[in-house]
């Protein structure tokens, strides 16, 4: 049984039926069903300047549905800056970022999950409250907070204020956000940092399931992501 079952159990019954129906139709035609709209992300000739210093330029790549890209590069190469640009926090200093396909109008920030260095958790609120907040704010609700916490192995910590959790546990709560709201793009900045080996495998499993659903992942990383067939974009030398 795949790890994703817990996640799909969380999807409302009608959506699950719809998906089963989709799987049946696609299966008979030998196709793989996609949960998401087939849009691709085009980064064209992007340049980044921080504090007057050129960080990178001429960066181009395409991220297609069902694909993962590992973003590598030495410290300070601009990996986090690139992710900040993709989610609209930084303005590109050249080139452009556009979404192709049917979802032309959508802003990337509004259809992507960001899990960055900062976990986005309020320390005074419990893990469950933090996830419930993310679910309401991000929309497209999928798993409930409790189900998502169970998937990342923190079912027992739902009632604990996030401030009491360890760095690895906080990171796992932040990653559980990926499950409470369904968004096609995952922008992950060092998703595996602070995680133990078992949790790293769990995250790799979540990423594989997301790719199988037709989602796309861009992950800045120094180590291996644990994904077969992930592309690599290297920034800098």
């Amino acid at each position, binding site marked *: 049984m795949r790890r994703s079952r817990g996640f799909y159990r969380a999807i409302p019954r009608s959506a699950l039926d719809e998906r089963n129906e989709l799987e049946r139709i696609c299966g008979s035609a030998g196709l793989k069903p996609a949960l998401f709209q087939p849009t691709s992300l085009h980064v064209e000739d992007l340049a980044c300047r921080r504090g007057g210093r050129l960080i990178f330029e001429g960066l181009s790549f395409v991220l297609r549905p069902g694909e993962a890209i590992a973003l590598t590069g030495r410290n300070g190469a601009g990996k986090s800056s690139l992710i*900040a640009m993709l*989610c609209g*926090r930084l303005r590109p200093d050249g080139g452009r970022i556009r979404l192709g396909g049917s979802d032309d109008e959508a802003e990337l920030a*509004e259809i992507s999950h960001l899990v960055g260095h900062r976990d986005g958790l*309020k320390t005074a*609120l419990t893990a469950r409250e933090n996830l419930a*907040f993310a679910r309401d704010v*991000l*929309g497209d609700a999928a798993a409930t907070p409790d189900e998502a916490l169970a998937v990342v192995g923190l079912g027992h910590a739902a009632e604990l*204020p996030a401030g009491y959790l360890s760095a690895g546990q906080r990171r796992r709560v932040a990653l559980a956000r990926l499950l409470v709201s369904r968004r096609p793009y995952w922008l992950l900045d060092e998703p595996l940092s602070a995680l133990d080996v078992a949790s790293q495998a769990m995250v790799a499993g979540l990423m594989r399931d997301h790719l199988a659903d037709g989602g796309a992942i861009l992950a800045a990383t120094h180590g291996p992501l644990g994904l077969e067939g992930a592309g690599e974009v290297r920034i800098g030398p």
Partner: protein
Amino acid sequence: MKRAFMAILKRDLAVASRAGGGGELALVFFLTMVVLVPFALGPDLNLLSRIGPAILWLGALLSVMIGLDRLFQSDEEDGSLDLIRASALPLELAVLAKGLAHWLTTGLPLALVSPLLGLLVALPGEGVLPLVATLLVGTPALSFIGAGGAALAASLKRGGLIVPVLVAPLTVPVLIFGVSAANAAVGGTVPFLTPFLILCAISLGAIVVGTVAAAVALRSAE
């Protein structure tokens, strides 16, 4: 969209009410300041009751301002501002929710305890209700003018003092009309309603301008 708005409002209220959230900080500061003033001025009841509304208003203004720098900064630091930015909810409405939560946890309690503190500055009985009314309609202006300043300082690491410095000059009209309306009720030269209505107008204007300004500042944070 309504769900996201309510989620932000609910979360900020919850954070403010938990330990260390800063919800009670403004109240304690208000109390401290108003308690200290009679000690500084001496036991001259006539003097105290004459300047009472001004003391209470000044105390409320400073109390609202002390926690203001954390309004967006704490969200920026822990990354939850990125979550709010990633929401389909327009940033203006997110600011509105946060400003509303700020007012509910600072301005509203300040206005509600002001009759009690009025006793300390010998505020005459007929001045109590008008004072509460002016604080009720005036403090939203402080929260939302403050939101604009707080948004500018959101990405500054140590921007603590810059917010009051930025915001205080902008709150002068609120202070003037708030105090003159509260004074009018205890025997001022102008009728109560004129400054009170201007105060209402300032508040309504501040809610709109402050919300839009804060959203613009947050969008161009870097």
